[in-house]
């Protein structure tokens, strides 16, 4: 600890609510184990996984990646805006996050519909089991992330946040970044790495 310059070094602090960080760590652990199991299964039956991956469309997944990253940028901008007491633009950034996330849900929903339409289920093959489990589990997290950001947006509209107090925005942003981070790994593992 630096005692020579008291007051200059801020005490270590995590943005947002500490409980959210525990939650995020737990979520990352679940996805981490899931990804590891996916890796092992893929190695054991490379041909099956390659055949399955060949049937996945890259462009909607790429578009979704961009949407989530843009959403992350917007929610980060919202935190900065509230920190600078620019509450009106903070609200607009939150709304932008919601719209971008909504775009992800729409595209992903369409992708699920085409897969279900093609008769693909959890029991179709090991690849489709992992594909559906991982993407659907993540999909639920996007929806939860949207619910959290929406709740913060509603609070923000009531004027709940300002430069002195925007813990809620930071908490929501931390969760959204986790959802984004997991997707980037998922995108690379399931869609890109062939």
């Amino acid at each position, binding site marked *: 600890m630096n005692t020579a310059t008291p007051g200059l070094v801020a005490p270590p602090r995590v943005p947002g609510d*500490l*409980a959210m960080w*525990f*939650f995020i760590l*737990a*979520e990352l*652990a*679940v996805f981490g*184990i*899931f990804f590891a*199991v996916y890796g092992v*299964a893929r190695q054991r039956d490379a041909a099956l996984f390659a055949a399955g991956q060949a049937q996945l469309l890259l462009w909607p997944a790429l578009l979704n990646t961009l949407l989530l990253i843009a959403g992350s940028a917007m929610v980060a901008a919202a935190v900065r805006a509230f920190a600078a007491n620019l509450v009106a633009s903070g609200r607009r950034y939150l709304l932008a996050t919601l719209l971008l996330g909504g775009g992800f849900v729409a595209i992903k929903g369409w992708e699920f519909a085409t897969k279900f339409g093609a008769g693909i289920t*959890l*029991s179709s093959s090991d690849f489709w*089991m*992992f594909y559906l*489990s991982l993407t659907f589990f993540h999909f639920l997290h996007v929806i939860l992330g949207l619910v959290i950001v929406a709740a913060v947006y509603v609070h923000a509209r009531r004027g709940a946040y300002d430069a002195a107090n925007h813990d809620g925005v930071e908490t929501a942003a931390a969760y959204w970044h986790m959802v984004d981070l997991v997707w980037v790994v998922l995108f690379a593992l399931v869609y890109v790495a062939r």
Partner: protein
Amino acid sequence: MTSSAMATARAASVSAAANDPLTNVQLKYRSQAVAKPYFVAAIGLFVGQILFGLIMGLQYVIGDFLFPEIPFNVARMVHTNLLIVWLLFGFMGAGYFLIPEESERELHSPKLAIITFWVFLVAGALTIVGYLAVPYATLAKITGNDLLPTMGREFLEQPTITKIGIVLVALSFLFNLSMTVLKGRKTSISMVMMLGLWGLAIFFLFSFYNPDNLVLDKYFWWWVVHLWVEGVWELIMGAMLAFVLVKVTGIDREIIEKWLYVIIAMTLISGIIGTGHHYFWIGAPAYWQVWGSVFSALEPIPFFMMTLFAFNVVNKRRREHPNKAAVLWALGTGVMAFLGAGVWGFLHTLAPVNYLTHGTQITASHGHMAFYGAYAMVVMTMISYTMPLMRGREANSNAAQVVEMWSFWLMTVAMVFITLFLTAAGILQVWMQRMGDTPLSFMATQDKIAFFYWLRELSGVVFFIGLLLYIVSFFIRGNERASA
């Protein structure tokens, strides 16, 4: 000493006792005292459970011991059912004590709590007598199982009429507590406790559905068993532990509540889909092998957090509570629950491992340490903290606490050895019966691992001695009061 001197000494000690806050403590709410008969019954049934455990442990090595009076399957049923019933008595006692204190008001109806107690005790006792007195099939016939068949499933063997009784008891209990909470202060400890207790009652309802399809039957069975012990019971446990820790450490509620929330979230995230680790071989779709493995692999986390939680707040305590035994039980619960439920559960939760270990002594080793470490110990933590209060003192005398702590160590160490011997038996069993080129039959394997069953039985006797000492500790007065 002359008789007059003795009388003076007695008078002096009486007046000292009257002025001593440690020996003249009043309950915050008089109605909390209804917890006492529940705890007494819990301990009594616990003794019964261990006696039947010892009988069964001996039957492992002397096959016809007490046959035909007490067949193995009956002893097993009594052993497991008594466990569940005494834990339920413990949870109820804990609820009746904890909820008024958290809600800062008297219990809605102490009279109803006492009536419920007697109904539950008589129904429980009659059921056990039924198990022992008549063959199970006859019991099913007498109790009208044909009308609504619910009997015959492990842990849920109770006659339908007993099950209905349990529901009525649970409803009366929940009504009483919910009314108390609704009218009083709401804290996160009481909310988590109520969530757990309501969940316990609601999931028990699955035991009334007994489909012919065996796969469906197993689903519904696990929705009682798993969602109890790896779901809502963990909430009850977390609430009870948090309650005692708030009291004995004087740590801010806010800190303890934050821990509690995170533990609860982790329990539910890992535990609900973690049910899938029971679906591996029951005829459920194959994806459950992945889902069950992944999610249940995380189930040790909430238990580990409970250990961290207990040690953390005890280390940072703001007061020295005179009830050292209760603190020991609380810390012990954290450690043993993590080892028994967390580590020993993880040992065989992954599908490729479970493929070999399913239904072996590995399962039994996990079951023993998990139930003792998580649920038996948390109930004893609660009893240890509340019983002195209900008997008019903040803590027992030093002498009584020393005996209680001895019983803690005897039971806990004995349970560690029971677990280790069963684990050794289980590993050998898997190796000889399921992994070799020339696998042995089940019974031939059992003969070869008999040595470990003897050691387990020996540890069981030590456990029983510990339990007797535990009971003795309630009757030790001791002159010297425990120092704060």
